[in-house]
């Protein structure tokens, strides 16, 4: 008798099973369509649904999603008092959830109840003042309804909380949209008083410039400079103010002020990368609006800084020393050609000597010419 316990010749694979299952599956289960014929049936249907929803939220009280489904279903049935009561229950459960607040206001707005929506936003914003989303939505709603005084009120309330910079900018942009530039200026002032950072000063100055009030812009930047004049590190931070000031004055074709600003900045700043940038800006400025001597001195100054850097890196590179010496000798020759005072000549000669002395002081490590 053949053994019946041996395995079959051809085994089935898991892929085969899965594929067959996929091919032979039933259609997806769909909810049977219920037709509601009259008011009684409608009431019954609603009652059943309400029971179902209440069960769900009773079981999972913290699950906001279920609550929101319940509330939105009531709203879709145009039962607004019930929907509102459900929303209030959710707020009782978790009043700090932004989702609930936004859903609630959306429900009111879809039902064209504008004042209730505004009241809700008022509550939300009083409860969660650090959530920017709610403020933005509130402000947007007011503006969409063309209620500009309302917009102002909301923004003023928001600014009392001293929010981030973007919020201040939103307020200013709003005033600009309605051509209230004086008020925008006042808002900038308040912003500065809250957050006196260099970039805020610069923004204000640019705003005044674009507005055409250059005297105000100058005043702003001067106040900024006075504010930052006192300490060294602050001056470092305030480089943007210097460059902004200089740029503005150059646009207005006043050439002495930027020069003074640049000189002041270069004197007080330590030799950092940003200082080099400022020096580059200064040279550009001088190239455009210069007198001969000042241009030369700035160019020379820049070159000197460069050489100093290179020399400090590698003191043995004789080429650099030679170019350095050439630079100084060049200036000397220039002076002699131009005809200058003896003092200046002496000073330049002194500098040339200094360079040579320093070059010679670099002793080679060994007796060979090449290492």
């Amino acid at each position, binding site marked *: 008798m053949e053994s019946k316990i041996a395995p079959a010749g051809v085994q089935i694979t898991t892929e085969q099973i899965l594929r067959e299952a996929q091919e032979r599956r039933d259609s997806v289960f769909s909810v049977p369509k219920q037709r509601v014929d009259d008011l009684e049936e409608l009431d019954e249907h609603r009652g059943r649904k309400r029971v179902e929803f209440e069960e769900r939220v009773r079981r999972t009280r913290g699950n906001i999603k279920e609550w929101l489904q319940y509330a939105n279903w009531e709203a879709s049935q145009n039962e607004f008092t019930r929907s509102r009561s459900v929303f209030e229950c959710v707020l009782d459960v978790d009043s700090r959830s932004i989702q609930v607040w936004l859903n609630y206001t959306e429900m009111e707005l879809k039902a064209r109840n504008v004042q209730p929506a505004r009241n809700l936003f008022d509550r939300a914003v009083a409860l969660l003042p650090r959530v920017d989303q709610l403020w933005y*939505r509130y402000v947007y709603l007011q503006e969409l*309804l063309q209620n500009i*005084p309302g917009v102002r009120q909301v923004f003023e309330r928001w600014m009392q909380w001293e929010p981030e910079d973007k919020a201040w900018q939103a307020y200013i942009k709003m005033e600009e949209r309605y051509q209230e530039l004086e008020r925008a200026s006042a808002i900038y002032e308040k912003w500065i008083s809250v957050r006196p950072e260099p970039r805020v000063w610069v923004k204000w100055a640019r705003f005044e410039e674009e507005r055409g009030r250059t005297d105000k812009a100058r005043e702003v930047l001067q106040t900024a400079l006075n504010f930052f004049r006192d300490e060294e590190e602050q001056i470092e931070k305030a480089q943007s103010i210097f460059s902004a000031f200089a740029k503005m004055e150059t646009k207005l074709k006043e050439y002495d002020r930027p020069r003074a600003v640049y000189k002041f900045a270069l004197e007080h700043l330590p030799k950092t990368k940003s200082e080099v940038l400022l020096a580059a800006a200064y040279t550009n400025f001088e190239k455009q609006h210069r007198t001969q001597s000042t241009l030369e001195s700035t160019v020379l100054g820049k070159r000197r800084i460069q050489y100093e850097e290179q020399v400090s890196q590698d003191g043995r590179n004789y080429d650099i020393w030679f170019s350095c010496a050439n630079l100084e000798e060049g200036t000397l020759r220039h002076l002699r050609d131009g005809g200058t005072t003896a003092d200046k000549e002496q000073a330049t000669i002194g500098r040339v000597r200094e360079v040579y002395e320093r070059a010679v002081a670099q002793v080679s490590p060994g007796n060979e010419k090449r290492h």
Partner: protein
Amino acid sequence: MPPTRSSKRQEKAKEMADEETAVEATQDEDVVMTSVDTNESTEDDPASDGTAKMTMDARKAKMEELRRKMAASSRANRASLVEESTKSKITARDAARLDRQRKLAETLRLKADAEERGEDVERAKNWEYTIEENDAWEKKQARKARRADFAFHDDAHAARRRYKKELDHIKPDLEAYNKQKEVAMGLAPGTLTQFDPKAGPASSPTSLEQQLAAENLYRDANTLMYGDSKPSEEAIDRVVSKINRDIDKKGKFSRKRLNEDEGDITYINEHNRVFNKKIARYYDKYTAEIRASFERGTAL
């Protein structure tokens, strides 16, 4: 109905018949005319027969010409008919596509020509743009670049981005606002807004009214006025349409993709399929060897 050959022949036959009758009529006329003309000149007599014959030839020639004209016009009609039928068949989308292809081909040709000649097409094109146009273009590109970052950083950032995008849809109603402002600042009506001749002679508001209006317009955080604005119906319409727009956008957020069947069914239901896709996304790079050996059937 397009002209068929038989109908055309009928037409031609009819016309020929017409023309022949016309020829005959004119011939008769001519004969009459010549008989009338005999008074005027006797020399025309032998010539009059000739003229009658010539007119016959002339008439024949004229008829030939008319025939030619008719044939040509019917051919032209046919051609335009064919053209129209083909045009109606091309959909707008195809037409747009062909248009684009044509333009692309043209630009490519221009570029090729310019390269042969050794010119720079870009520079030549840039001559056409004014400075303002160029500035506006660059500003637009910069704004696009700034807005392109759609990764989620944090809630405040997302909220602000959404606010700025929505601001594009607001059109500030400066007219109404300026009217309010006029009343608030006590200016004569018409300083800030357009002069409205239909409105009656409105007197400037009293100082008390002006004060109230100013307080109303420029509100502070501590203003006690609340809930006094009654938005118009169209304002509420705007709000509702904005909400509907948002719902539409949310619906279109994840595009439906065609489920190209991979062939390898490793799931038992839809949920399982999506889960397998997710797992594959994260772990495929680590399990490459394992999967390869599965395929082979043996480990290496």
